[in-house]
């Protein structure tokens, strides 16, 4: 609860800074503030409690995921320093929206009432619509915003319908009450339908097949930093929320429901990976890669009781490597109209450090050992096999192989092609973010227990 209040306070503070004309200080202050919030959140780790009529429930799950979100937001805000250089007059708005978005995200993982959940997801979504369309003179950005908005509000409608049906079945929005009631034998069919509709709405948010179509288009059209946000923070938030929704409501996950999850998971991996193969736009490629990672993360839904830790680990691994990759993309594609793969030609020669970081990030996503991505996949496979879905794991393995194809396309472009032009300037912040993110990823890879055991 304190986290949420603090974040909102920080968001308002950002707006005030604009009024006091302290634009230069916004990014550092926000980062410091977020670090403070991070400390606050971590301090709540062991004090599970519920606040305000069970509206907000602080648990280990919520604190750990909130911390992850905060860390990601810190990176994203820091990257904003360079990204919004030319938009000084709006920088406070951008930063504030991001902070509010974080508030929505935190609400989504710590809700105790479906109202909080719904408002949280709406805050998040609306912030994203705005950020996607924020490059207002750019038609691509407009288009991305429009597509995202239309499809997102459509999905919101479905989520709302789901909530409504759950309410109809249970007569309450409180998840603990719902959880208690869901044990009773006489459940109206509204409840499972509500759960399914809710799930579908969330599957849209995590961009799982067949609800993924928005993702590549929106990722490509949005400003690069927004893409970074969507592909890391937003995806992780949505996934964590879906997990939490299903677990806290104690929804009776039937076998057929699991079948659906398995099929969607397989489809997401396969479609995501195969479609990514022929992409030339890096953001678009990472969008499809994100689709496939969503498929991987969906595997956690098959073994609720134990998989919270692995979801957290996968989410951290994926989002940290995503941040690292996007910081390099931001650097490379700055002042370019597109994020075409040709921009990366010869990066290995002109900027070996960033090239190495991007390589490491991609290797992590591909699941090559010692990077966290490997262990993430490992624990997932482990749990899924334990749950008895060997076929799914084999599909996942095949997909891991396919994924190497396009991740390496980028690596090859960096190391085998000749650079086409000089890049100037060494933006310290981008370097710092990239290095810290990849180092965190490596640390997670070397000491997976740090995270895995948190929610065990």
């Amino acid at each position, binding site marked *: 609860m304190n986290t949420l209040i603090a974040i909102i306070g920080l968001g308002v503070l950002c707006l005030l800074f604009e009024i006091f004309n302290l634009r230069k200080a916004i990014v550092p202050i926000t980062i410091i503030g977020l670090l403070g919030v991070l400390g606050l959140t971590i301090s709540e780790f062991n004090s599970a409690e519920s606040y305000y009529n069970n509206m907000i429930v602080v648990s280990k799950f919520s604190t750990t995921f909130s911390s992850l979100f905060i860390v990601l937001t810190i990176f994203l805000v820091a990257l904003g320093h360079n990204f919004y250089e030319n938009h000084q007059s709006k920088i406070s708005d951008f930063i504030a929206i991001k902070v509010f978005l974080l508030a929505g995200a935190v609400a989504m993982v710590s809700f105790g009432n479906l109202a909080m959940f719904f408002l949280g997801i709406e805050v998040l979504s609306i912030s994203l619509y705005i950020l996607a369309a924020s490059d207002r003179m750019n038609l691509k950005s407009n288009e991305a915003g429009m597509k995202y908005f239309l499809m997102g509000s459509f999905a919101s409608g479905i989520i709302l319908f789901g909530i409504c049906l759950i309410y109809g079945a249970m007569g309450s929005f409180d998840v603990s009450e719902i959880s208690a009631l869901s044990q009773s034998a006489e459940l109206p069919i509204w409840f499972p339908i509500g759960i399914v509709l809710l799930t579908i709405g969330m599957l849209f948010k995590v961009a799982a097949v067949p609800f993924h179509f928005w993702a590549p288009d929106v990722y490509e059209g949005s400003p690069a930093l927004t893409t970074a946000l969507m592909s890391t923070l937003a995806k992780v938030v949505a996934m964590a929320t879906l997990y939490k929704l299903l677990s806290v409501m104690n929804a009776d996950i039937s076998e057929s429901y699991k079948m659906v999850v398995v099929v969607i998971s397989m489809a997401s991996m396969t479609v995501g990976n195969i479609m990514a193969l022929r992409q030339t736009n890096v953001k678009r490629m990472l969008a499809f890669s994100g689709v496939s990672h969503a498929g991987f993360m969906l595997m956690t839904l098959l073994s609720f009781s134990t998989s919270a*830790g692995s979801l957290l680990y996968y989410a951290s691994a994926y989002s940290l490597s995503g941040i690292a990759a996007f910081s390099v993309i931001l650097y490379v594609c700055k002042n370019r109209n597109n994020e075409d793969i040709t921009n990366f030609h010869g990066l*290995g020669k002109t900027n070996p450090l960033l090239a190495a970081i991007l390589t490491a990030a991609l*290797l992590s996503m591909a699941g*090559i*050992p*010692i990077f966290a991505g*490997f*262990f993430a996949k*490992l*624990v997932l*496979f*482990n749990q899924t*096999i*334990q749950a008895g879905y*060997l076929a799914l*794991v*084999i599909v996942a*393995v*095949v997909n*891991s*192989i396919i994924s*190497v*194809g396009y991740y*390496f396309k980028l690596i*090859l472009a960096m*190391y*085998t092609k000749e650079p086409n032009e000089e890049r100037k300037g060494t933006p310290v912040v981008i370097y710092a973010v990239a290095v810290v993110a990849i180092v965190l990823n490596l640390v997670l890879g070397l*000491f*997976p*227990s740090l995270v*895995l*055991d948190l929610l*065990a």
Partner: protein
Amino acid sequence: MNVSLILIILLVGAFATFLAGDKLASKVAFFFGLAAAGCSIVLLNHYNLGENISFINQWITQPNISFALKADGLSMAMLLLTTVLTPIIIFSSFGNDYKNSKSFYALILFMSFAMAGTFLASDGLLYYIFWELSLIPIYFIALIWGNGDAEERKKAVVKFFIYTLAGSLFMLVAFVYMYQKAGSFLLEDLYKLNLTATEQLWIFLAFFLAYAIKIPLIPFHTWQANVYQKAPTVGTMLLSGIMLKMGLYSVIRWQLPLAPLAAKEYMYIFIGLGIAGVIYGSIVALKQKDLKKLLAYSSLAHVGLIAAGTYTLTLDGLRGAVLQMIAHGFVVVGLFYVAEIIFRRYETRAIAEMGGIRSQTPKFTSMFLILVLASVALPSTFNFVGEFTVLYSLSQINIWFAILGGTTIILGAYYMLKMFQHAMLGETNTKIFADVTFNEGATLVIIIAVLFFFGMYPKPIIDLITPSLQEILTQINRIN
């Protein structure tokens, strides 16, 4: 003092090399390579005195993964192969000028580190991690410092990477599956599993895919020739000298004891596959125009025989396989180095463009010939010891295996001598062939000395590996 020291030396060496800068890189790398070799010899001494030089430490609690390095005779033998070949390989590259050499040599040491780790790890997952790690450096070595058309090279290298990764991922699934049952990745815990025949078959096949691609056995070998050809010679040496052996070692260490029922049930098929590789590789090698490609196919033939030996599940088969692995490691490094020496002078690997070298450099020719002869397992070379033992074990299974596998004696001589004839003999070449330098000569002499020494006196290695192989055999035979 335990084996983790070697890993530390190699890893630190990799970083130190990277930091040393382009000028010093090769020397620093060589120094660390030597240090690792020295250290492993010291460790071998400790091991022979009966000291425990294994290392185990819990790494990850959930899932239960330990940082377990176990050094038994087999591991020590393979470790020695790695650590001895590494400085030799580095030394052999002194004549070449690599751009960005700090990264190059750092990657070599890193690869050596990963391979040494693979040979030492006794925790399934740790093993898998090292296994995969070794893939990354060679990928970059082949990609960035390789030769030939960049696009072609890219294709070959990426294929290699994806292909090998594909195989090993199934191995990972098998490991995870076994972990479900055993609750640990430790080798000894996995040994205790009582898997049904069907489970064993699938696990066996999953492992097989990984190893068959890595070794490579036909028909999974298509990456090999191209990568060998395209990679810089140092990379080719690492690949063929050590990395191939990772697959073979793993068959002995992991695949057979973990799925003995399947191994026994289907051993004829796998022996057959290995022997088919022998014949196929030899025949394909006949008509190769590129020296490195020819050596690649000869490698295919040799490892086919080694693999056939391992699948006999007899002490002789395993022992012969290990001996032959070590012998082949040395001889193939030597042969690729010869190809490199010729390339340094003639800028070509096409056999047709060579010829008439012998009259210009008799010393080099003799060394080349000795390596050729060792490769065709002339008695008194190390390769003979291995090949004989393997063929003997095959004859115990079925005499026809030995006869068919033995065709390597004939076909091997055929293609190697044909290659030698066209590469070295004939009218004096119009292009001048400068005599071998000290470095080149020294490298070859060391390799030849090793081959002859162990060819006449393989006892130390046999004594080293036999107890651990017997232990593995006990594991293989634990269920009947």
